[in-house]
């Protein structure tokens, strides 16, 4: 069922993410994303799937204003992020937790500092920040590694640090790009439970993944991209 058209018309103030005919072209003549319209409600949990190069990461980047759309409108929390002033971008990003496909950890900071930076940018008081970071690291099973540097962590450990950073300030929106690609099956379930838990507490979650097992297991809404175009949108 192609649900994009239907959903986009389904306007509502409680939808923190709405895309209307969004296209993105990095190189003239080719589209990484083509005419994508969709709407995601508050607290909804959505899988984003599709083959390599389908535009999943591009879609996520548009949502936190790391890229600007070539065409169309993107409303995040009611604001048009395609037209956001440079100076308004940080405030947007502080409401959005992102797990990057390549982690993007600060190599010269410890695990604790890497997670904590998400609280520092919001001006959280030090005492509170320390407690939250410790709690979060415990949840991803890395509290014992908190004084180590990311480069001395295994791939899966780094991925969990990235997730901890994205979740620590209880964002309104969580964008996770392949957040379990480096995790073993058991850990994948633990981590996904964390993410699902966040969504039940009201965080709107988009998880880009290739892991069809995961998609099937959780049975959540699944949006499929193919060559930059909306494929299926399955509830």
């Amino acid at each position, binding site marked *: 069922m192609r649900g994009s058209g239907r959903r986009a018309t389904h306007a509502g103030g409680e939808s923190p993410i709405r895309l209307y005919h969004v296209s993105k072209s990095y190189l003239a003549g080719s589209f990484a994303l083509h005419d994508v319209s969709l709407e995601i409600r508050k607290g909804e949990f959505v899988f984003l799937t599709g083959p390599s190069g389908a535009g999943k990461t591009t879609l996520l980047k548009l949502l936190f204003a790391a890229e600007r759309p070539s065409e169309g409108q993107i409303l995040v929390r009611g604001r048009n992020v395609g037209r956001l002033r440079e100076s308004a971008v940080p405030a947007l990003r502080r409401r959005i937790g992102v797990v990057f496909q390549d982690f993007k*950890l600060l190599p*010269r900071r410890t695990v604790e500092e890497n997670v904590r930076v998400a609280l520092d*940018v919001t001006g959280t008081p030090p005492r509170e920040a320390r407690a939250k970071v410790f709690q979060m690291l415990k949840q991803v099973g890395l509290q014992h590694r908190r004084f180590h540097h990311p480069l001395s962590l295994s791939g899966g450990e780094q991925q969990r640090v990235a997730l901890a950073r994205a979740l620590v300030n209880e964002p309104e929106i969580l964008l996770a790009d392949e957040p379990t690609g480096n995790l073993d099956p058991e850990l994948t379930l633990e981590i996904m439970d964390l993410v699902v838990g966040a969504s039940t507490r009201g965080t709107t979650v988009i998880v880009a993944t290739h892991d069809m097992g995961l998609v099937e297991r959780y049975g959540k809404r699944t949006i499929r991209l193919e060559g930059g175009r909306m494929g299926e949108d399955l509830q």
Partner: protein
Amino acid sequence: MVAVLVRTALRGLQSSAVTSVAAAGTIAIALVLVGAFALIAGNMQGLLQRFGEELQVVAYLESDIDAAAAQQMVERVATVEGVQEVEWVSPERALERLRESLGGGGLLEGLEENPLPASLEITLAPSHRTPEGIAILVEAVDGLPGVDELAHGQDWVEGYSRVLVLVRSAAVGLGGVLALAALLIVANTIRLAVYAREDELAILSLVGASRTFVRVPFLLEGTLQGAVGGLVALGLLYAAFIMLVPEVQYGLELFLGSQQPRFFAVGEAAWLVAAGAGLGMCGSGAAMLGWRA
């Protein structure tokens, strides 16, 4: 928030020791150059002053002027604009000097009477040691009763004032070039340091750090690196001063006379450190301008 920014800056310094040391080191070296130049130029100032003292206008007096009348003239001339000192030289003293200057031989023994006149030796204030200053003096003194002839080494003054201008502009020019070079080198170095940490800045911006949050710690880091560089430069200069001055003391005395070579005063030293901090801050600021999130 301020605490967080400062802490972030300190962590930044710590976590990028290589770039921090490199930046501080470069600032130190640049400031050593500028500082050494300032020291040398400052001490040379005294030397130039002394050269200038040799510039005198000599008013030869008519032979019928006695000591008392001469004394009156001295007082009169001393009031002329730009005059610093006036000395009366009696004919006897003049002959004595000529003898000395001819090497003390028996060269002038044959003279039956002293052919030399009395004179007034007029020294100009430093600010008036120019062709214009001399012209004023000459005009004022030339018509005075009792003055026979004026000797004022116009050429000498021309030369002196031009040399002075030349040396001063060379000093200003060289100092300027040094300061500019220091600025460019520091900016360059900090730009490289930013470049080496670009990924870090980009990541901070991606997790929602505002411009302030990214930039302020960086500026603080730069400022601190610069201040440390300034302190190091000050230390190096002082060490060099302490070690080198006794070595060249003897030679220096020829130049500076009894004047002791002096190091920076506390205020000047503070300026050097402040210059380092300023360089570091501006360098970081300039480097950050080039960087876009």
